[in-house]
């Protein structure tokens, strides 16, 4: 026997519709992904440039039998490149945190900067101080060497969990996996495989093939920036649709 009345159902539907509208408006105001994705996209483009310099300038082919010593500037650049995601990534998280703090204060809603600042400071400490006297130190170094985005990825996932932000978590996984694969030369190797299978390996310059990972990094950066712009436009669209209810 169904004892639910049509009035109950209409009221239940109205409540669900209203709560969804309020939820969307609050999410738009407090969980905009535009700035986090924009910052992450710019950082990824920056990493593509750093990787380009490392691959094509510092480690360029001098020719058969040729060698030279690295300059001090090249060694310093190499150190910056090694800690890029620890230092520049941490700065990026702090910038997002600062922006959210100002926005939350001005708007009167949102969790503020706490999680972002904690993530940025944690990342910065890991990159600068590390865990030199701990057995974990070696492991941290190895993980950073193999997957330089591992720690900023973990920080972003923790922030996403704290903010209950599924979209940020999904973007973080996409960013972390693709950038790590590019760092390991995955896309260059797959392009090489593809050229071998299609019999085109000899007709394409190896120097061009090895740029595949850099191209993927640049594309990821541009996709993140594009997603940021799209999120901002979507937010403006919602703002126009969700007008405050007057009772």
């Amino acid at each position, binding site marked *: 026997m*169904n004892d639910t009345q049509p009035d109950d159902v209409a009221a239940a539907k109205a409540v669900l519709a209203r709560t969804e509208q*309020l939820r969307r*408006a609050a999410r738009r105001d407090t969980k905009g992904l535009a700035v986090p994705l924009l910052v992450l996209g710019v950082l990824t483009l920056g990493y593509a440039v750093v990787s380009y310099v490392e691959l094509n300038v510092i480690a360029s082919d001098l020719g058969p039998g040729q060698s030279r010593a690295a300059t001090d500037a090249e060694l310093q650049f190499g150190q910056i490149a090694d800690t890029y995601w620890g230092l520049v990534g941490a700065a990026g998280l702090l910038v997002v945190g600062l922006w959210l703090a100002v926005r939350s204060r001005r708007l*009167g*809603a*949102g969790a503020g900067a706490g999680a972002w600042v904690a993530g940025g400071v944690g990342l910065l400490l890991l990159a600068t101080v590390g865990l030199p006297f701990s057995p974990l130190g070696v492991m941290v170094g190895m993980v950073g060497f193999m997957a330089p985005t591992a720690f900023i990825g973990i920080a972003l996932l923790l922030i996403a969990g704290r903010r209950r932000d599924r979209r940020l978590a999904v973007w973080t996984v996409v960013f972390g996996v693709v950038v790590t694969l590019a760092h390991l030369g995955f896309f260059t190797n797959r392009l090489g495989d593809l050229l071998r299978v299609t019999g085109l390996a000899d007709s394409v310059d190896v120097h061009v093939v090895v740029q595949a990972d850099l191209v993927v990094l640049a594309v990821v950066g541009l996709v993140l920036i594009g997603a940021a712009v799209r999120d901002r436009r979507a937010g403006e669209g919602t703002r126009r649709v969700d007008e405050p*209810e007057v*009772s």
Partner: protein
Amino acid sequence: MTPPDASPGDQVQATNASGRDEPHPTSRLDDVVHQKARLGILVVLAEAERADFTYLKSNLGLTDGNLGRHLEVLAGSGLVHVEKGYAGRRPRTWVTITRAGRHALAEEMAAIRELLRRFEGG
């Protein structure tokens, strides 16, 4: 949506297709949470984590007195935490949702969805 004869907390019984008695979904609705403005406050806070008095007032279309009374009820039930402070020289009241508030909101939404499911499932 609470049946007229039912007082809060009454377990309204219904018999389902298999003949087994189960409580009517409306009996799971909590009067403190179910009220339209209070439900709105909890929904906004669950998404925003914290909001100030002005933001809640404008987003929910409530008056100062109305919002203040609803916040008192929610705070009295331990569903929100109200913190009064200052922004410069102006008073500013921040409201955050508690764990109990999140739980109560989830229960409420589940009860409403169950009501719909029961109707649409025949």
